[in-house]
């Protein structure tokens, strides 16, 4: 059928500093394969081995400038397990409240700065206008103040609880280093109530601008951005979504539960495929097997995104978010929803859930308790900590000697979970726009929208890329020769 040979792609150098996509055409000039390459930091495990495990919440939160709090939390939970200590209830509640504040803040930034502009300003608008300034122009000045307030409040409360403005130094094996007093609790509650209103406002904005526009709805539900894969999410005892703790649940493309397991058993259920053309591994479901970058019940590919979390849960644990959850599935034709662009909507539902949970916990009588740490007494050994990070499931796995010195470190981050579906989404978007060797206008934009929905963390590292989502696409013939290069935001 296809004569394409495998071509290994040159590593991206950090000097280029941008994501690179190679699209291979077959003899007919149609898309045969798409490879997404992203730069990755090196040597984190070696950097950590030999250090004290207690340092990990403060080291790993520097890995990622986008979600330091997610790494901080996964690391703290891994340390609980390493020292075999169960934090007291107040500590768990404080951690989850902190995490909910972070989640709402991070999702807000993504929606208004990156994901939202594609819809609010319009998918056909020039890239230079598809930003928050374009959103303001269309929606009004108020929005700028609202978004900046949400961020300011979130950062302020994270500092108030986490101890430092930059990287929190709060999580410890067995709990946290400090609690909150009544005055602080009141402030957290007040900001949380305003945050709920902001989340509701954001959902109304999405309804008015996106859902009332049939073109946008067609774009969301169209085939270009749809993939029938397995969906992963963390759920509580009632199978409702939880960001901080629970069981990992995976539902099939048909929406039925495939498996539910304790995150500490992840290696029994998730394997990692290594492809010679990518630094980044491709996790897949062991119980299904690796069939390549393909859809369907027989392919072990899964998604770990805001949308996949909604698909994997039976509902939301808070009332307002539950209503929005129901509306999303009713509007898009029932569960599960496989339309990648609906991830932006799911993100807004998650903001509402995070803000409601934030207030629930801020009004919990136990939240100001002074019992926020259990002192570990066991000998440290091995531990796994898992949370849902904004961009997908995040797992930290540490092994130590009897002194608590790290001997092994493994991290599975959100973007890695989504490596296969991101490549598949990019390929599908490209396939629709390249036919018989001809490239339609808007290829870069459509490809960018495909992977922007996942908000991939390039390298899951604190370094950022110059410009706005710099992207280079190489079109290659079956022999691997570059026919055409398209790029944007590469100065």
């Amino acid at each position, binding site marked *: 059928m296809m004569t394409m040979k495998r071509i290994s792609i040159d590593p991206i150098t*950090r000097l280029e500093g941008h994501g690179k996509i190679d699209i291979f055409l077959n003899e007919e000039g149609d898309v045969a394969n798409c490879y997404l390459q992203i730069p990755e*930091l*090196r040597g984190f495990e070696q950097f950590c081995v030999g250090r004290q495990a207690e340092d990990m919440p403060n080291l790993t939160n*520097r890995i990622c400038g986008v979600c330091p709090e997610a790494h901080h939390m996964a690391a703290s939970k891994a340390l609980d397990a390493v020292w075999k200590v169960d934090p007291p209830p107040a500590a768990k509640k404080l951690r989850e409240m902190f995490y909910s504040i972070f989640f709402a803040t991070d999702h807000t930034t993504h929606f208004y700065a990156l994901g939202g502009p594609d819809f609010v300003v319009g998918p056909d608008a020039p890239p230079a206008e598809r930003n928050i300034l374009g959103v303001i122009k269309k929606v009004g000045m108020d929005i700028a103040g609202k978004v900046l307030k949400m961020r300011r409040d979130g*950062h302020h409360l994270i500092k108030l609880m986490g101890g430092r403005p930059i990287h929190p130094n709060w999580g410890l094996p067995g709990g946290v280093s400090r609690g909150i007093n009544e005055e602080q609790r009141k402030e957290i509650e007040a900001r949380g109530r305003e945050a709920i209103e902001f989340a509701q406002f954001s959902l109304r904005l999405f309804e008015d601008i996106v859902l009332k526009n049939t073109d946008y709805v067609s774009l969301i539900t169209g085939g270009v951005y749809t993939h029938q894969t397995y969906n992963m999410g963390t759920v509580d005892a009632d199978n409702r979504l939880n960001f901080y703790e629970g069981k990992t649940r995976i539902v099939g493309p048909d929406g039925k539960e495939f498996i539910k397991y304790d995150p500490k058993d992840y290696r029994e259920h998730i394997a990692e495929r290594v492809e010679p053309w990518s630094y980044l591994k491709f996790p897949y479901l062991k119980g299904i097997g690796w069939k390549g970058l393909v859809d369907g019940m027989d392919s072990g590919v899964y998604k770990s995104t805001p949308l996949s979390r909604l698909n994997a849960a039976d509902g939301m644990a808070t009332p307002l978010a539950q209503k929005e959850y129901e509306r999303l599935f009713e509007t898009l034709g029932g569960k599960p929803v496989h339309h990648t662009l609906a991830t932006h909507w799911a993100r807004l539902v998650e903001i509402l859930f995070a803000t409601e949970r934030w207030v629930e916990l801020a009004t919990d009588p136990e939240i100001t308790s002074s019992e926020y740490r259990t002192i570990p007494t066991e000998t440290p050994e091995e531990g796994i900590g898992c949370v849902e990070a904004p961009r997908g499931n995040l797992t930290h796995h540490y092994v130590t000697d009897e002194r608590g010195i790290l001997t092994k470190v493994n991290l599975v981050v959100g973007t890695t979970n989504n490596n296969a579906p991101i490549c598949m989404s990019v390929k599908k978007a490209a396939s629709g726009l390249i036919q018989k060797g001809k490239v339609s206008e808007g290829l870069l934009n459509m490809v960018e929208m495909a992977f922007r929905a996942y908000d991939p963390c390039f390298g899951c590292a604190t370094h*950022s*890329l110059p410009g706005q989502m710099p992207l280079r696409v190489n079109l290659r013939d079956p022999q691997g020769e570059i026919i055409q290069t398209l790029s944007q935001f590469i100065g």
Partner: protein
Amino acid sequence: MKTLVLGLGNWIVADDSIGLRVAAELARMLADRDDVEVSEDYWGGLRLMERLVGYDRAIVIDAITTGAAPGTIHHLTPDAIPTQRSASAHDMNLPTALELGRQAGLGLPPNREILLVGIEAKDILTFADQCTPEVAAAIPAAVEEVLRLLQTGSPAD
């Protein structure tokens, strides 16, 4: 005039820490200056803009990769900002963020008072406690350059 001197970077990624190391040196030297605050952060875009609120002037020190010799010092303005952290793939670039802040009525320094000092990095992909020797050797010159900017308000050349 209230000035913020801000090092951007990551302490645990080789040359990506250079902006922080220069800022740490300056923090010691400028400890008695009431009109200058020296600080650090890790992220560009919106977050960087939010850090600049309330200052009349800002000098931002960051790693940069242009292909020049490691340790080379570059001068940049907010309109031309290819440094490591002054842009963000997860939110927005600095000019957009500054525009947003100004539209929202935040008190930001004017663009001409936002000076970026970029130090050419060699390795920004490896986790390490230290810079490469070539880049570490540029710390005294970068410190000098920031002190000169504080005094004159414009680059040496």
